[in-house]
Structure formats: structure tokens, C-alpha cells
């Protein structure tokens, strides 16, 4: 049967079925690409047991999570201090810091030269963050550049091809035969927009995602202790808790949340000094609204 011989609602039904098939098969292609395992004999569970806190943090939330974990861990152990409002991180003087992870070491080393804005500090340790990622690539937990682009482009191309293959010729035919084609155009446009979903970056392999899940489940004891007895945690345990569970991991502190706040981009500094988000909130809380012209005297 030639599908192009279908017309009206019948063709639209066929087109939607084709799009559905295209989406499912695109996801399957992505899954296949991310499932390629260079070390199939090493299970995700075995590899999860060997992850260091910053590798775990990267798996949970990429570079940002790993960097924030380092800041919060060092702050929790009073090696650095984080100024939420000034968005700065400062080394606490005369504080010994043995047994630091290489990422923590790099951060401490950079801070020896003076306080840094969190965003600048992150740039300064980007080399070490890249090393963490490289190790994950070696363990087949994170995607290398080639796999990353394949996992984005191939499903996208496949879905886009199906979208176009069954829409463009039919629209041309409809125009030639002077048939209505508005709904088909609309569906094709929607499918075209949806196809960008498949361009989503794939940072982790399937094994990496699985290792993250296993590690989180196996770290339930750490989570319990971090929430109830955080003072008993070593530097490494603290880092693992922040890395896996983020801001709410450790009871009674806001180091991670402060670092996350300080890392956010500084609101734009326009001529009036009042960007929409920055000034609005500060004036709103301190003197009940009224931005511009000070705080109402």
C-alpha cells in the first residue's frame, strides 16, 4: 500500500503513527549508542563501588555539582568560607588541610592567592574538573566527544528524516492537487520543534546512569548519618554526601545552597542599577516594593 494515496484524516493518522514510531526508534537508537560498553566485564555495581566523591558528584549533576561539592565540603570543614552576598570564596588562614582530593587541592591552591568569585574559582579549577570527567570517560561512565555527538545527532536526524519524508512530498502533492493541507503542515511544524528534544546532550552512558543509581541506593547509610550526625563525617564522606544528595544532604548547614547561590550569574548591571530580578527582590523584602528612586525614603 502506498501511504501517499491516503487522504485527509486517514493520512494524518498515518503520519502521527509514523511520528510515534520515529520517536520510539530514535530513543532506541540513543539508548543503543549510550549502551556501548568498552568494559562489559566490569559491572555497573562494581564500578559504582570504586567511584570517588567527585566522580559521583559529576554523575549526579555534572561540573556544577562537582564544583559546588568541593566548595561546600571545604566550607563544612572550615577550610574555606563562602560569602553568599559577595559571591566570594575565601581560604581560612592557618588551617591545615591534609588528605584533600585533587579538586579540593586545586581550589585551595588557587585560593591561596586571594579570595575569588565563585564563578572565577570554577573557571580556575576547570582543568581538574575535566580530569574528573576524563576518568569517567575511561571507566565508560561518561560519554566521549564522539559518542556524545552521535547520541544527539543520530536520533535527531532519524526523527527529522521521518518528519520530512512523510510531510514534504505529501504537502507538495496536496498543493498540486489543490487539497487542504493545513493540519499536515501544523503537525510537521510541531514534529520539527519536537525533534530538537533529541539533540539533548548525553553526558553519561547508560552504565554511568546505572552506576549513579546504584551508588545512591548503596549510600543510604551515609545519607542517614549525614542528616543526623554530620559532625562524625570525614572530609571524604562529606564530599560523597554533598555529591550524591546535594544541598539537603547534610543537616544544619547551608554551605552547598550558599555556594549554589553565589555561583549563579550576577544579575545584569544596567544604568539604573536595577535589573528586573536583582533589585526587585531586594527592595521588595526590605521596604515593601518600590524600586527606582531608592527605597521610598
Amino acid at each position, binding site marked *: 500500500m502506498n501511504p501517499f494515496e491516503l487522504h485527509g484524516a486517514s493520512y494524518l493518522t498515518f503520519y502521527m503513527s509514523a511520528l510515534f514510531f520515529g520517536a520510539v526508534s530514535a530513543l532506541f537508537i540513543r539508548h543503543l549508542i549510550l549502551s556501548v560498553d568498552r568494559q562489559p566485564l566490569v559491572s555497573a555495581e562494581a564500578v559504582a563501588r570504586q567511584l570517588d566523591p567527585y566522580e559521583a558528584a559529576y554523575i549526579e549533576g555534572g561540573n556544577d555539582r562537582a564544583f559546588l561539592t568541593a566548595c561546600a565540603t571545604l566550607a563544612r570543614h572550615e577550610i574555606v568560607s563562602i560569602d553568599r552576598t559577595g559571591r566570594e570564596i575565601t581560604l581560612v588562614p592557618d588551617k591545615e588541610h591534609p588528605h584533600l582530593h585533587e579538586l579540593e587541592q586545586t581550589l585551595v591552591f588557587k585560593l591561596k592567592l586571594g579570595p575569588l568569585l565563585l564563578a572565577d574559582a570554577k573557571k580556575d579549577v576547570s582543568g581538574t574538573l575535566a580530569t574528573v570527567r576524563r576518568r569517567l570517560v575511561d571507566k565508560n561512565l561518561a560519554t566521549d566527544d564522539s559518542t556524545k555527538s552521535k547520541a544527539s545527532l543520530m536520533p535527531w536526524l532519524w526523527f527529522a528524516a521521518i518528519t520530512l519524508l512523510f510531510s514534504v512530498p505529501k504537502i507538495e502533492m496536496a498543493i498540486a492537487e489543490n487539497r487542504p493541507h493545513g493540519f499536515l503542515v501544523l503537525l510537521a511544524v510541531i514534529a520539527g520543534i519536537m525533534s530538537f528534544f533529541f539533540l539533548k546532550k548525553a553526558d553519561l552512558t547508560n552504565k554511568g546512569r546505572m552506576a549513579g543509581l546504584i551508588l545512591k541506593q548503596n549510600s*543510604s547509610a551515609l545519607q*542517614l*548519618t549525614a542528616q*543526623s550526625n554530620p559532625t*562524625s563525617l570525614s572530609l571524604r564522606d562529606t564530599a560523597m554526601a554533598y555529591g550524591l544528595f546535594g544541598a539537603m544532604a547534610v543537616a*544544619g548547614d547551608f554551605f552547598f545552597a550558599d555556594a549554589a547561590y553565589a555561583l549563579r550569574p550576577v544579575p545584569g548591571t544596567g544604568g539604573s542599577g536595577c535589573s528586573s530580578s536583582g533589585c526587585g527582590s531586594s527592595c521588595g523584602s526590605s521596604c515593601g516594593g518600590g524600586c527606582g528612586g531608592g527605597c521610598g525614603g
Partner: protein
Amino acid sequence: MVADIKTAVKLGIGFRPELALMIERRAERGALHFVEILAEDYKRPQDIPQALKNLRKKGLEIIVHSTSLSLGQAEQKGTSGQKEYEKCLRKRARHLNEIALLVDSPFVSDHIAFVRSGNLESGHLLPVEHSAAMQAVLRRNIAIAREMLQVPLVLENIACTFDLPGAEMDEASFVAGVVEENDCGLLLDLSNLFANAHNLNFSAAEYLEELPLQRLAYVHLAGGTFKRGLYHDTHSHPLQEQSLFLLEELIKHMPTNMSVSRVMLERDDRFPPEDELNGELDAIAAVLAKTEVASACAKIEAGNRIAGQSKLSTAAAQSAVADVALCVRQEELVKSLLGMAAVPHWLHEKRIREAAEALSRKRLRTIKRAHPALDKHLPPDSGTGVFNLFEVDTDDEKRLDHSLRLYFAAFPSVHPDGCYADSLAFLKFIKTAQKQKAESIYASAICFPTNEVKV
């Protein structure tokens, strides 16, 4: 790190979230064989944390313990109080059973004690009179609890800083009688035994001789501290040498071809560094390793399982009439410990006052631990309201302690739903206190809906 001492006896520890990581690490080394959980910590089956499930997967045994059955609670027969108590006991025992089945606990344990009288909740395990009347009360209550249990019941001796007058027998005979008569297993808390031997001046060795050690299911050890000549079994201080010495004594007293099967450490507060706690467990293991252990563990297990299945019929036990005087005396004791009434003449006033103070401190600590950010909820000391009744320190911690004491005065009974509910009730109290005059709070103490107490 010191190499772990291998012993045939199973070594365990009380599972607390604060110790979860330490427990997991020790279990991974194979130096821990079981954990004990408190049924009251897990209101619903889904509250069991993943960490416990992981321990189970690693082959650790999980034993379910309880502190709330109040098996020694005397209620006047035929009264609404008795019906209420039985309903509550059934509910708690059913919950205990549910948790035990969920974690595959070989048995469940509770204490030979009472924790509440009427609707007054003491928040602590209180001693029962060593009399035949009390044995009858226990028999009836144990029978009711067993109706709900599909696993054997094991009973524990408690610690006490004061003695109750009118005892018809010594503690050891009483405990032995209760355990034998009800066909239960025995959980021997050696630190409680040491505390009682020290505080009430009797010989721990003679006590051990009287116990039916063939029924021994497991052993508790915990730290404590000496205060004003009394030993307090706090579970928040290091393990004392005396408790270890008693463990050696116990092993010597075990019947031929039988051995202690499980020994565990309890720690509930002021959690020390991992190494310190591991040191205490290693010390216990060292004592156990010194002694020859036979392979009698399985026999004890089987014995307990059989014991649990031979239930007394409730109807038979119902014939035991609760002594009215016993019930009145329990109420007087609870009221005096909660500071709601003067210490009755038949009790040792000084010791009861000390015990009352210890209970109040314990309640304060547990509330603060259950809700660590409580001080953040205190209103600023603005010059009016409940926080200015007395001279109050500006220090947040002291201000919190002070307001908690005021709360205890208004609500002497511990919240029946536990320490977290107690902390929430305290928050409600301070909100109400902000709205009303402090004096009126005192005059008309607002009570828990299920637990009305007038001060």
C-alpha cells in the same frame, strides 16, 4: 586499624541513623552480625530505611525491640482504663509483629516494666513491684500481646535508681518467674543489672545464678555514668568496665553446652567518633573470644521459637485480677516522677526527685534531638510573653531549655506519639504562649487531645 576479633557469638549494635554509616562499614568487614531496631521508630512499613534493607541483603540479622508495650501496666479490671490499655497494647503489639515480619526478626523484645499509667505517659521504663500480683498483671498483658505476635517474645530487665517497697521477692526471682511462667525468652541487659546491683545494693553474681539462662536470647550492654553515688544507664556514655566484667561472669554462669548467642551494644545519644564505638565493640568481642563458645546458639534459637508458639490463652490469664492498690501506686509513682504530685510517703523522696530530674533532662534531650532546629522557631525575646516570666538568658540554647521546661510544666505527660510529636506540641505551645498571657497558660494547661492532663 586493629584486626577484628573473630568470635562465634553474634555481635550487634542498636541501629540509629547517627550510626548507620559506622554500622555499614563494620558490617562490610564482617565484624558485625546483627542490628536491633526500635519498632517505635518506624510507624509504617515504608519508613524502614534503605540502609536497613541493605544490611539485610548483606546477611545481617535484624532484631525488633520495643519500649512501648508497657507490659507491667496495672489497670483496674472492668474499667474503661483497662479496655483502653488492652486496645492500645493490641495495636502496639500488632505493629511490633508487622515490623518483625517485614525484617524477618527471629523474635521481638520488650521490657518487664511499665511506661504509662492511665493517660499519663512517663517517657521512660519504670520498675514494677516484685510481687505475685504484678506477676499476674504481667501474665495477663503478655497473653494479650502474644495474641498479636507471630514471633517469640523476649523480655528484658530494666535499670532503676530507686526501689519500690513491699517486694515479695528479689528482682532476679521475679524476672525468672515472669520469664519461666510465660514461656518467654530472656534479654539480659548487663548494664541494667550492674546499675541495679550498684544502686540497690545486691550481688550481680547471685542475680545471674537465679536467672533461667537456658532461655537467654541475647544480651544488651550500654554505657552509663555515676552521678551523686548512683549509676545512671544513660546509653550516652562510654561502656563501663564493670559491664564487661559482668559479661565474663555471665559466660561462666551459662549452663553446660550452652553459650551466649548474641551480644549487642546500645548507644542512643552523644554519639562518639567511629573509632571509639568500634573500640567498644572490639572490647566486647575480645571478652567473648576469651571464652570457649559451644555451638549451642541454634539450640537456643529453636527453644525460643517453640516458647513463642506455646501461647497462654487470654481467657485463662483474664482470671488474674489486677490489684487496685497496685494500679493506684503506679499512678502515684508516675505523677511524682512527672512533677504533678508530691512524692508519696512510701517512696524514697530524694531518689524519686533525682529520677524525676533525670527524666526531665532526658525528655529535653530527646526533643532537641528529634527536632534539631527547634531554637530557630523561638520568638525573639521581645519583652512580653512567656519567655520573660523569669530572668532568661539571651543565649539561644539556654532560652530553648528554659522554654522547654515551661512546656514540661504545662504538659507533664510525654506525648504519646513520641519525641518528634512532643517537639511539634512544644512549637504549638510557644505559638499559643505568644498569643496568651503566660499566667493563663499555667492556669489552664492545654492538653493533648488524647491525653488530658490538668496541672
